[in-house]
C-alpha cells in the first residue's frame, strides 16, 4: 500500500469518527429528561449512539465502496483476488470489537450504578422485626424503603403502586391517600413498591427513562427523583389484555409547596409535615 493511500484512509477514518461523534452528540431522539435518571441515561444514549453511528456508517461505506469499485464491468472476465484470509486482519477485527464491547459494558455498569441499580434490593429489611412481614423484593432499581423509618424529610417518599387490568392505583402510606394519579414533589426521592393484582403489567414513564414490571406475587421496587415540574404519562408496557393500549395514568411533578397542598387536601390521617 502506498503512502498517499494510507493517508487517505486515515483521513476518511478521522472524518467518519468526527462525523459520528457529531451526530451522536447533536441529534436528539429522546423526549425531555425529567428525572435524575434521565440525565444519566441520556449521557449513555449519546455515547452508544455515537459508537453505533460510526460503526454503521463505516460498514455501509465499505459495502457501497466495494460494490461500486469491484463490480464486474460489462465484458470483464475472470475471477477476483484469491484472498483466503489474513491472520493479522482477523486478529485486529476480533480484538477491536472486544475492546469496544468491554468499554461499553463497563461504562454502562457505571451508568447503572449511578442510577442506583446496584443497591441491594432488600437493603434495610434485615434488622427489623417486620422482616417476616416484609415480602422479598424481586427486582427493580434502588432499595426498598420502609414506611416506619421515613419520617424525616431527607428520606424517600414511599408510594405503593398496585396495577390491575387496566389501571394503576397509588397508595401513600403516610397520609393513607389512594389516588389514580401519582403526585410527587420535585427534587424528592420517591420509592415505589409495585405489585400487580391479576396479570403482569409494567410501569413506564418515558420522560424519567425508567420502567419496571409489576408482577403478581412478586413485589418490585423503583426509586427515582423527578427534576422538572409537569405532567407526564405513565404507560403500561407489558401486554395485559385487550385494553392494554389504554392502560395509562399520569405522574404530576409539583414544586414542594404545591405538592404539600395536594397532600394535605387529600390526606386522611394527619401527619407531621417536615
Amino acid at each position: 500500500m502506498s503512502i498517499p493511500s494510507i493517508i487517505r484512509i486515515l483521513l476518511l477514518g478521522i472524518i467518519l469518527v468526527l462525523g459520528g461523534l457529531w451526530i451522536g452528540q447533536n441529534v436528539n431522539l429522546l423526549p425531555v429528561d425529567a428525572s435524575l435518571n434521565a440525565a444519566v441515561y441520556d449521557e449513555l444514549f449519546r455515547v452508544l449512539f455515537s459508537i453505533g453511528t460510526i460503526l454503521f456508517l463505516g460498514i455501509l461505506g465499505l459495502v457501497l465502496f466495494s460494490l461500486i469499485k469491484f463490480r464486474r464491468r460489462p465484458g470483464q472476465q475472470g475471477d477476483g483476488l484469491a484472498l483466503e484470509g489474513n491472520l493479522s486482519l482477523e486478529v485486529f477485527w476480533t480484538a477491536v470489537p472486544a475492546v469496544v464491547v468491554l468499554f461499553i459494558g463497563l461504562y454502562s455498569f457505571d451508568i447503572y450504578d449511578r442510577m442506583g441499580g446496584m443497591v441491594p434490593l432488600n437493603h434495610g429489611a434485615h434488622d427489623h422485626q417486620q422482616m417476616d412481614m416484609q415480602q422479598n423484593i424481586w427486582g427493580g432499581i434502588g432499595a426498598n424503603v420502609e414506611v416506619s423509618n421515613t419520617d424525616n424529610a431527607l428520606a424517600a417518599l414511599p408510594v405503593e403502586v398496585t396495577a390491575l387490568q387496566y389501571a394503576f392505583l397509588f397508595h401513600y402510606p403516610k397520609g393513607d391517600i389512594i389516588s389514580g394519579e401519582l403526585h410527587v414533589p420535585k427534587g424528592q426521592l420517591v420509592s415505589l413498591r409495585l405489585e400487580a393484582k391479576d396479570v403482569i403489567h409494567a410501569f413506564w414513564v418515558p420522560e424519567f427513562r425508567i420502567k419496571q414490571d409489576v408482577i403478581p406475587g412478586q413485589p418490585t421496587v423503583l426509586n427515582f427523583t423527578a427534576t422538572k415540574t409537569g405532567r407526564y404519562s405513565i404507560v403500561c408496557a407489558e401486554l395485559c389484555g385487550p385494553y392494554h393500549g389504554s392502560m395509562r395514568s399520569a405522574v404530576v411533578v409539583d414544586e414542594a409547596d404545591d405538592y404539600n397542598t395536594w397532600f394535605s387536601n387529600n390526606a386522611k390521617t394527619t401527619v407531621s409535615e417536615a
Partner: protein
Amino acid sequence: MTAAIPPTSDEQLDHLQPTGWLRYFSFSLDHKVIGLQYLVCGFIFYLIGGLLGGAIRIELASPMSDFMARDVYNQVLTLHGTVMIFLWIVPVVNGAFGNYLIPFYVGARDMAFPRLNAVAFWMIPPAGLMLISSYFITGAAQSGWTAYPPLSITTPAAGQILWILSVLFLGGSSIFGGINFIATILKLRRPGLKLMQLPMYCWAMLGTSILVVLSTPVLAGTLILLSFDIVVHTGFFNPGLGGNAVVYQHLFWFYSHPAVYIMVLPAFGLVSEILPAHCRKPLFGYTTMVYSIMTIVVLGLVVWAHHMFTSGTPPWMRLFFTIATSFIAVPTGIKFFNWLATLWGGRISLNSAVLFSCGFIVNFVFGGITGVMLAQVPFDIHVHDTYFVVAHFHYVVYGGSVFVIFAAIYHWYPKITGRMLNEHLGRFHFLITFIGFNLCFAPQHWLGLNGMPRRVAEYDPQFTFINQLSSAGALLMALSTLPFLWNVVQSAINGPIAGDNPWKALTPEWLTSSPPPVENWTGEAPLVTEPYGYGVTEEQFQKTATNNSDRRSSDQ
C-alpha cells in the same frame, strides 16, 4: 441410516414414489422434494403472516382502536408473530435449504433418516392449519407469541391450548429436523471429505441443530406445564396458586433466545455460499468463521435473561447477562468483517442474489448495533417492550433472515428449476423491498424512544404521523412481493434455460444437472475439497482489469 446409500433404492423409489408435480403433495422421501415442500409451504405461511402484519399496520395508521376489536387485535398480533417465526423463518432457513443443500454438501444421496425427514415436514401443515383455524373456531390465543402467564392463563383457554399444541408440533418437527442434520453432517460425509472442507452452510446448520436439540425440549416442557396450569389448574406459573410467573419467562427465553440464532445462523451460512460464487473470490477467513459459529452457539445459550431486564431479576443477574450478551457481538462481528473482506477485491456481479445479500449485511449491522444497545441494562430499562425492540428484531429477522431467504431463492432457483429468473424484476424487487422495509421499521426506533409501547392497538396521537409513515413502508413491502411472485411463476414456465451451472460455482450442488436427478448424481458423488477455490493472483487480477477498454479511461 443405510437407506440413503444402497444403489438399488434407485429403482425402488421410482416405483413407490409418485413422479411429476404429484410428488410434492406426497410423503416423498427425496430430500430435494422435502426441501421444496418446506419452502413453498413456508412461503404460503409468509403470505398469511404478511396479511396479519398488514392488518396490524392498518390498525396503527390511526391512534384509535378503530379497525379491529381489541381482542381480535391481540389475536392477530399473536398469530403474526407465531406464524412468522415457527412457520416461515425457522422451517425455511433450516428445513427448506437445509434439506435441499446438506446432502449435496456432504456428498450423500439423501439425508440420514429420510422417513423421519418426511415426518418432520408433514407435521408442519396440520400444525399450521390448526393454528390458523383456531382463529375461526374458538378465537386464537391473545397473549403474544411469548404467552406470558398469568395472562395466558386468564385469556380464553381454547385458543391458548390450540396455540400450545401447534407450537409443540412445530417444535417437534424442528427437533426431528435438527437430529437429522446433525447425523447427516457428521455421519454421511462422503469418504475423503473432511469437516474443515465442508461448505460453510454445513457448519451453520450443525451449530443451529445443536441449539435446536438442546433448547427446543425446554420450550416443549414449559408449554406442557403451562397447559396444565390452563386445563387442570395446577399452579406452576400461577401466582394465585403459589406459582411463580417469572420462572416461565426464564424457561421460555432459554429456548427463545437460542431461537433467534436458529433463525439467523443458517442465514449466515447461506450468505457465505452466495457471496463467494458471485464475487469470484474464496470465502474470507474460513476457519475463523467456523469458530465464530461455535462461539455464538455456546454464548447463545447463556444470554436469555436479557429479555427480562425489567422483570423480577436481581441486580447481579441483570449485570451478568449484559456482559454475556454484549460479547456475542464479537463473533458476530468477525463474520461480518469476513464477508466485507470477501467483497473486497472481487469481481462482483451486481445481481439480485448479491443485492439481497448486501442488503442483509447493511440491515443486520443496524439491528446488531441496536442489539448491543439493548443488551445494556440501563439502556434497555427505558426501551424494553417498546417499539424500539420491535424495530430491533425486525431489522435482524426481516432485514437479516428474510433478505437472505430472497437472496437464496435468486441464487438457487436455476438449480431447482433449471431456469433463470428475470434479473430486472429481481433488482426491482430488491429496491422496493429495501426501501419499504427501512421506511416501515426505521421510524419505529424513534417511536419506542419517545414513549410508544409495543402490542398496543391505540396510542398517543402525537405519534400518528410516524406510525403512518411506518404503515406506508409496510404497504410497499406488501407490494414488493408481487413482482417476486410473478417472476417465480413466470420464469418456471418460460424463463431462459439455466444449464447445470450458470454461476460457474464450485460447491457440489452445481456439479450435477439442473434440476438434479433423484439421488443427486448419476455416477459417484464428486469429492469437493475446495468449495471456495475461486480467485486469481494479484497480477492476473490487474491484467484482467486493465484489459478492458471502457475501464482504462475512467480509472488508472
